[in-house]
Every structure is written in C-alpha cells, then in structure tokens.
C-alpha cells in the first residue's frame, strides 16, 4: 500500500477540442483534503471522474486507493426509500454500518421509509451523503457536495469530511464555496485562459 491515497502524474484532458487541464501532478496523503475550484466548465467534474475511473480519455497516470465517488448524479434510486438505497450499498460494499444511525447523522431521521422521489432536492442530497458513511472507502471524491443543502447541511458536510480526515481518510472535492475543513489545499482549474 503506497503512502499516498492518490497520485496523478502528467494528467491532461481535452474535451470538445478544449484543453481542460494539463500536466497535473496531484498527491493526496491520508488526513488531507484537496479542494478543486474553478469557473463553470473548467473541468472540475471531469477531473473527478478521471480519478474515479469513470472517464478514461485522459493522458497521464492516475493511481488511487479505493475511492467513493459522489457526483452530480446522486447514485440514489428514486424508486426506493432511503433505507432501501443504503441497504443496497451495504450489499455492494460489504459494510454493516447501521443504516438508521447513518440516516440520523445526515439529518434524515423520520424519512427512512419515504420513497426518494417524494423527498425535496436537499433531502435527496442528504441520502446521497449517507453513502459516504456506508461505503467505508479511504478516498472520497465529492463533486459539489454542498449543492441544494441548507446551512445545517453545509456544517454537516464539513463535519463529515473533518471526521473522515481525522480517521485517516482523504477527500478530493470540487466546490464553488470554500469548505472550512482542516488540512485543506486548493487546486485552481481554468486559470490558463
């Protein structure tokens, strides 16, 4: 096991004829959080997908520990309830964290059995966040985790990340609002043009 949770070397990516980023050298060790910032369309989501293994058309190398990706698409089936969704993730990732507790932590106590389609935008995001606690991966890849969340939700996200860093994990986030977590570095994209 390498000492880094994530290393990239010479990472470049072109999309629709525009160079989004080039020659990125990123390293992320346990306990660190890296915030990717940049204007709309600068390639933050693309970079996260490259790291997650969901976008293979890049040049350079990516070497990452098992990662958990939370993107613009939540990964929550709207037909199922919050509880059912999380149970399914337990089945996939083999963890037995208690679902009820996790839902309570993300502020969804009382909505465990509501079909996700009938939740508000922010509530759906919270169910998505609950995945982070169920699938216990060392590396978190979060694409705009604050979207649709209220102020308590912002605090929740920073809290989750801080705890994760403290227990030896790492986080790689694309955000527009800076997150106030310890050990956070920033990477600016889209500054070249």
């Amino acid at each position, binding site marked *: 096991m390498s000492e880094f949770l994530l290393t990239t070397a010479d990472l470049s990516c072109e999309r629709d004829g525009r160079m989004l980023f080039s020659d990125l050298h990123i390293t992320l060790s346990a306990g660190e959080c890296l915030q990717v910032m940049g204007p709309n369309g600068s390639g933050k989501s693309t970079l996260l997908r490259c790291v997650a293994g969901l976008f293979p058309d890049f040049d350079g190398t990516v070497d990452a520990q098992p990662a958990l*990706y939370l993107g613009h*698409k939540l990964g929550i089936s709207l*037909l199922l309830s919050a509880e059912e969704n999380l149970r399914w993730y337990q089945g996939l990732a083999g963890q037995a964290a208690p679902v009820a507790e996790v839902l309570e932590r993300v502020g969804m106590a009382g909505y465990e059995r509501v*079909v996700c389609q009938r939740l508000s935008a922010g509530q759906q995001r919270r169910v998505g966040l609950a995945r982070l606690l169920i699938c216990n991966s060392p590396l978190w890849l979060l694409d705009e985790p604050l979207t649709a969340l209220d102020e308590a939700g912002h605090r929740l996200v920073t809290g989750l990340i801080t705890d994760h860093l403290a227990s*030896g994990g790492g986080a790689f986030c694309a955000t527009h609002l800076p997150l106030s977590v310890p050990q956070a570095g920033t990477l600016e994209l889209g500054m070249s043009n």
Partner: protein
Amino acid sequence: MGMIAVPTATSAPRLFWSQFQRELVSVVRSKEEALNPLLFLFLAISLFALGAGGDPEVLQNIAPAIIWVLVLLANMMSLEGLFRRDYEDGTLEQLILLAEPGFVPVLAKIAAQWCVSGLAMTLLAPIAGLILFLPSTVLPTLMITLLLGTPALSLLGAVGAALTVGLRRGGVLLAILVLPLYVPVLIFGSSAVIQHMDGIGTQAQIYWLLAITMISITLAPFLVHAALKISVEQ
C-alpha cells in the same frame, strides 16, 4: 490516527441476492415494468384476433409465429428499461465502481428481468395460445420452448441494452443489435411448435435452445458488465 477499512468484497451469492431483491422491490414500486411485457403480449394478441376477424383457421396456422414474435418484442422492450433508470440516477456507475465481482449483480438484474418478462410470459402462454386457437396438445411444447428460449433472449438482449444505455438514440440501435441475436431462438422456438402441430418430433430444436441458453448464461454476464463499464465512462 485511525485506520479506514478497505471495503471487503461480499461473497458472490450474497451480492446476487441483495441485487435481486432490490430489483424486485423496484419492480413492485413501478408496476410498469412488472406488467408491461405481459400486458403487451395479451393486448397485442387480442388485437391480432380482432384484426383477423377472429377466423380460427387463419389464426391457428400463424399462432406459433405470433406468440413467439410478440414474446421477442415484449422482451426487447422491457430490456430497454433494464439499465436506463439506473443509468439516469447514477446508481449504475456506483454498481460498476463498487461491486466485486461486477458480473454478479448484473446477472441478478437480468434474472429479475427474466422473471417478470420471460418467465411470466411462459406461464401465461397457454392462455395466449388458446386465444389464438392453438390446439391444446401443443401448449406444453409452447411452454417448454418458451421456458428454454426466453433466458437466452434476456441475456443476449441485455448485452445490447448495456451497449446502448448511454445513447440518446438507444431504441433503434438496440433493435438493430439485438434482433439478429434473437433470430435463432425465434426459429428454433416457433418451428418446434409448428412441427409439433404437424406431428413431427421437436427434440433437436429443444436441444438447440438449451445450448443457446447455456452459452448465453456463461458469456453474457461478463459481456454485459464490460458493456456497462463502457457506457458509464463519459
């Protein structure tokens, strides 16, 4: 500083079962998927009976073809939705990223789809046959061929569905990709029924159906998994 446990792989049977259950729950939630193939089959058959003016002889001769073709089409249409919803809400990419071995939940999804399409249609095929004046003696053959042939339809079709799930123009492409693969099943299946009606043996067709189904069970899950991986990568 604490240590984070790397996700441990679940055992394959548990993985299968967890996914299978989830599919069934989804099916119950959106009854659409559960009923669509059956409903399509029966509505279309009634339409045929109506359109042909209810002439028993005209219908009887073509009945095996009608039933088999409609089963094919119903199955193909139900496959279109197999991965689409998961693709749209992002659960598909999570499945591909997290499940290990990845083909197991894929197989579970296909199995669940088969239960609500192929299996259900097999069980109700005798009624379809009777509506079309098929002699009741050939109904067992009809059911056996459907039982053996429909798994192959679901498995082969899933490859096409997986390849086209990310594409806007999925429908047409799916048909172009999938229907050629369906043709042998159609031919063996319907000719077995026709031959039984004519009093000729049907052993060979049944063995062929078995062979096709076995080979699809063996290969399709891996291919579907590969195809899904391609589809979510964008």
